[in-house]
């Protein structure tokens, strides 16, 4: 071995020993701190909701024949409930939007709200590199903002343009609806209400306004109002050709 190589090897060896000596106490300390914390935290007050179960699958039925063109009750209610500013620049978040439609053959016009369709096979969940985009057992598709890195691949994958990216720092969030710059977000089906036995703000406000165009319920329960309606009238899922099996259905489209 030539002397230069020998010197380099000795140096590397010494450097490794020194690095080990510096890191080891930290590793032990970490271990120690972990050991000091109780393995399982003591049981808390009984949870009022959850864990959610796959026995239910939440969904909505939107009756376009009852949805009034120009009415924005559902959009406003969503913004109020979720602390969204309600501005509509191309960089602003819109969890629910009213789409005006004109049939290209007949010329008939209609109007319908579009939000996250809460697919059974959500493309956004498939493509998310970190698993931040996920589907709860009860079918609600959400973004875990703690692991969202803001790559926007889910927005590329969503067939419904249902997701928004938070383009600016945010303030004035609601306690149960955290949202902030750099993450992707979308309709949560008002998960904070649903978990307490409530229904989404859009459905509630639509009924309060006297339209009743949005029906919320459990698609897995054959006795639920929504299941009965789906059995008795023709309904469709948006882009049904993609077989994403949406939780949101439309009537009169």
């Amino acid at each position, binding site marked *: 071995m030539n002397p230069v190589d020998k010197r380099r090897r000795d140096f590397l060896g010494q450097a490794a020993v020194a690095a080990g000596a510096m890191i080891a*106490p930290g590793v*032990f*300390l970490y*271990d*120690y*701190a972990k*050991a*000091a*914390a*109780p393995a399982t*935290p003591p049981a*808390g*007050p009984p*949870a*009022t*909701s*959850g*864990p*959610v179960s796959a026995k239910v699958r939440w969904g909505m039925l939107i009756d376009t024949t009852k949805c009034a063109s120009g009415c924005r009750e559902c959009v406003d209610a969503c913004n109020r409930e979720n602390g969204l500013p309600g501005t509509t620049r191309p960089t602003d978040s819109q969890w629910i939007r009213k789409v005006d439609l004109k049939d290209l053959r007949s010329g008939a016009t209609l109007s319908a709200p579009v939000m996250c369709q809460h697919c059974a096979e959500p493309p956004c969940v498939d493509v998310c590199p970190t698993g931040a985009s*996920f589907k*709860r*057992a*009860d079918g609600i598709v*959400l973004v*875990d*903002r*703690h692991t969202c890195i803001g790559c926007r691949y889910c927005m590329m994958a969503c067939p419904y343009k249902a997701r928004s990216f938070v383009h600016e*720092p*945010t303030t*004035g*969030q*609601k*306690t*149960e609806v*955290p*949202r*902030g*710059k750099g*993450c992707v977000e979308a309709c949560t089906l008002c*998960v*904070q209400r649903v*978990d*307490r036995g409530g229904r989404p703000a859009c459905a509630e406000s639509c009924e309060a306004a006297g339209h009743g165009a949005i029906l919320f319920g459990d698609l897995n329960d054959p006795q639920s109002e929504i299941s009965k309606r789906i059995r008795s009238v023709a309904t469709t899922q948006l882009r049904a050709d993609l077989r994403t099996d949406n939780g949101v259905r439309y009537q009169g489209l």
Partner: protein
Amino acid sequence: MAAFRLAARAAAALLAAALALAAGPVAVAAGPKLDAPRSGPCVEDPKLMRRSHMEFLKHDRDDTVRRGVRPAKHSLAGCVSCHASRADDSVLGSDTHFCQGCHVYAAVKLDCFECHTPKARPAAVASAAGEPLR
């Protein structure tokens, strides 16, 4: 293996004790001055909370976000509702505000409130949501 772990723990304990001895008096003398909590005792022993609040929060946040468990025993909303300043209902704003004050003192980055609100909700709303406000 067990013997090794024991030895490691002992060594670590010794080292920790030495470090505590070195740093202890300083820390006691110059702790952060923080707003007093609004009500009763914390959901855990304060000493344990000081060290492990993030572990508790992380554990329960996954339960809430991914499995819909509400209310969680250890929730950030719970922290905020007890520790928000009486003056402006916030845990941020100055170095006497509870979260900001301690994090500035400990020089640990605090990014919870980039998304979560630092403001406490009115008490009636909070208790309806089942927060541990006592």
